[in-house]
């Protein structure tokens, strides 16, 4: 590390050209008085008190993550073996205009290209340069891939976007034969993926991160040694805002150790309190909680079918083993799926895509196969199927079924979602619905078709006894007093009746009850102004008809009494 040649300012705070607030508190308690941390020892800080820390954090930092992410699953890797392999590669950020080099590989660096250089200058230096566009999605995927590798070593993995992953390894050391071996094996695994990580292990996540960013591959087990080892690190590894770093540089503070020597209060007042908290966290004086990375797992399997399959029955037979494998996969993880995507490839036609949606998390092969059978039964294949791909939705936690003690429950609640999903698989989602009451005077708006499965179950209707006792027909849910009867069947759209003054429906109609005037709905444009009557036709059918009041007039049939 070369020392900057800027004029050095004396670290003595009282004589530094700092503002008055810093100068006014010259010798307050310091962030870190002396190397070794003796002041805090035994003062309720368990991490500092014990020889070895409670936690050990390994930071995996990927300095070349931009190019590595493009190489990982991308086309850069595919034609790397081709004739262009020799060309130096740089990446640019198209989202920011693509004029500046973000990352350069070893060949480009050897040619003198550095990140931050203008692309035109880079091309002038190296005309054979290959320019790639960086892809944030791939960068994220790279990080997640690293985290999945890391999950083989410890369950506590957290992402540190954009370029690092943190692992808590305290509990895994013995299993993997110590920190050194663990780091070596982690590094080897990542190297086999073509990555060049920098690893640093310390008792705190931030310190590990700073070491790794600074390129120092350290292995520190004792928190006591942290301040002394952190002190020479350049402040740039903290990734504080550029302005703050510049301000600190003008004060002659360029290294972590120099920053630690500044008075705490003044430092917090002058800069953001967050920065002081970060320093505390790096030293292990403040807790630093990390969100654990949870891999969004899916089950994806492809199969080529040889010979091609034309009928859905045999297709079902071909898919069922895959479903069994899927369910074993789910069982091991204690997981379930809520939907499955099936893609059937044909020779010429576009692939057929089927989506199986379940009423809830499912992990039983028989149930999935059942649904698949119904779904395939109503699928028209455009041609023979050459191959298929089964892809699960992100896994969800499986719900344990509570069994009944005596197993005599005849109508189990779980059967309803299954019935609904089976009917829907064959008939379509719209064909199956539930009903709910709405407090509305307009007859057609007094009920709604709802999703069966969203309806609250287990609650009971208000006793019909109370309905019958009172003379008025009180609708239990709406609280609306129905002094007039309502038909059990309602027509979706009122049907016009013939006859002007006296309506007819398969013969002359005989009035039984009415009129009941319903006038409502002027506020939402579906204004209703009707007089309803209960009538009977010669065949003995009781009907609910209305006369439209207002300009249009006319008689309409709206319901049938069942």
């Amino acid at each position: 590390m070369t020392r900057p040649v800027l004029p050095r300012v004396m670290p003595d705070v009282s004589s530094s050209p700092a503002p008055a607030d810093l100068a006014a508190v010259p010798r307050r308690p310091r962030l870190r008085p002396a190397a070794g941390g003796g002041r805090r020892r035994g003062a309720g800080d368990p991490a500092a008190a014990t020889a070895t820390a409670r936690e050990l954090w390994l930071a995996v930092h990927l300095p070349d993550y931009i190019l590595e992410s493009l190489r990982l699953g991308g086309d850069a890797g595919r034609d790397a073996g081709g004739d262009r392999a020799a060309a130096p590669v740089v990446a640019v950020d198209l989202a920011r205009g693509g004029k500046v080099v973000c990352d350069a590989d070893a060949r480009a660096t050897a040619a003198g290209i550095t990140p931050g250089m203008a692309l035109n200058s880079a091309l002038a230096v190296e005309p054979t340069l290959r320019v790639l566009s960086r892809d944030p999605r791939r960068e994220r995927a790279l990080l997640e891939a690293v985290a999945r590798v890391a999950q083989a070593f410890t369950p506590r993995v957290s992402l540190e976007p954009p370029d690092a992953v943190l692992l808590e390894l305290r509990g895994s050391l013995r299993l993997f034969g110590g920190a050194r071996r663990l780091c070596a094996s982690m590094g080897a695994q990542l190297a086999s993926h073509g990555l060049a990580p920098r690893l640093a292990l310390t008792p705190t996540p931030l310190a590990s991160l700073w070491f790794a960013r600074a390129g120092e591959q350290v292995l520190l087990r004792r928190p006591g040694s942290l301040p002394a080892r952190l002190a020479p690190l350049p402040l740039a590894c903290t990734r504080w805002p550029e302005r703050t770093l510049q301000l600190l540089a003008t004060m002659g503070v360029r290294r972590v150790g120099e920053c630690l020597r500044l008075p705490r209060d003044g430092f917090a007042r002058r800069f953001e309190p967050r920065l002081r908290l970060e320093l505390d966290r790096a030293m292990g004086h403040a807790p630093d909680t990390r969100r654990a990375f949870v891999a969004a797992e899916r089950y994806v399997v492809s199969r080529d079918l040889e010979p091609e399959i034309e009928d859905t029955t045999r297709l079902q037979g071909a898919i069922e083993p895959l479903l069994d494998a899927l369910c074993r996969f789910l069982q091991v993880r204690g997981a379930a799926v809520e939907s499955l995507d099936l893609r059937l490839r044909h020779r010429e036609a576009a692939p057929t895509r089927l989506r199986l949606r379940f009423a809830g998390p499912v992990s039983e092969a028989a149930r999935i196969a059942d649904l698949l059978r119904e779904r395939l039964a109503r699928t028209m294949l455009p041609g023979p199927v050459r191959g298929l791909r089964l892809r699960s939705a992100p896994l969800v936690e499986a719900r344990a079924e509570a069994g009944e003690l005596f197993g005599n429950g005849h109508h189990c609640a779980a059967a309803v979602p299954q019935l609904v999903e089976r009917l829907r698989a064959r008939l379509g989602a719209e064909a199956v619905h539930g009903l709910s009451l709405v407090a509305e005077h307009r007859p057609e708006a007094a009920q709604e078709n709802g999703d069966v499965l969203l309806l609250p179950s287990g609650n009971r209707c208000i006793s019909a006894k109370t309905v019958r006792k009172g003379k008025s027909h009180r609708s239990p849910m709406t609280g609306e007093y129905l002094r007039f009867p309502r038909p059990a069947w309602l027509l979706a759209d009122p049907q016009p009746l013939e006859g002007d003054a006296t309506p007819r429906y398969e013969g002359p109609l005989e009035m039984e009850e009415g009129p009941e005037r319903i006038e409502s709905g002027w506020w939402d444009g579906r204004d209703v102004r009707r007089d309803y009557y209960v009538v009977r036709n010669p065949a003995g059918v009781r009907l609910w008809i209305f006369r439209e009041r207002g300009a249009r007039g006319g008689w309409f049939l709206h319901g049938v009494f069942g």
Partner: protein
Amino acid sequence: MSLDDLLRHPALWRAREQGGSSSPAGLPTGYPELDRCLPGGGWPSRGLIEILTDRTGIGELTLLLPALARLCGTADAAAHRDAVGTSYGTLHDSHGWLAWISPPYSPYAPALAAGGIDVRRMLVARATPAEWAMEQALRSGACSAVLGWAACRDRQSLRRLQLAAEQACCFAVLFRALRAAHEASSAVLRIALEGSRDGLELRILKSRGGRTTSLRLAAIGSTASAPAH
């Protein structure tokens, strides 16, 4: 399994018990005249009930409504359970769902709720092969009542429905056209309905363990009676 258990099996019918008290207790229809005509004093507890009618709106739902309300756990379910015993006890305990398969019109929730049906536990399915959907509903074990409107042109589909209803132990009603009255059917109970000014005319065409008869329910649909709800 003892001999008594075997004899009590609902699939077993003994001629000696015709109309007797030992036939499995039925689900009260809510109409005492009808109860008297049915073995077990109500709708059969197992098997398919066929209702044959050409018209919608003569009171076919009113006929079923008291029984459906009972299955929804409303009305005097507890009292009934004490009186009747076990046959429908499981139904009352569980309050299963009520499935409507391919109804001719949309069932109207306010009227049904006023009749004592828990509309939140209703499931309406529009299926072109209604027989298939009805069979699924019966076999699922989730429903305490399944009402289906299906043509059942071939005897095989009717037979399948009857078998499913037999095993499901739920209130299964199949509505068909009146012309099917001349065809053979495996249903447990077949009733032809006709509306008239003096009430609903019922012709019991077949009743397993009971006898065929006809009666008129003045409570349903007669001009003299008050509206049913």
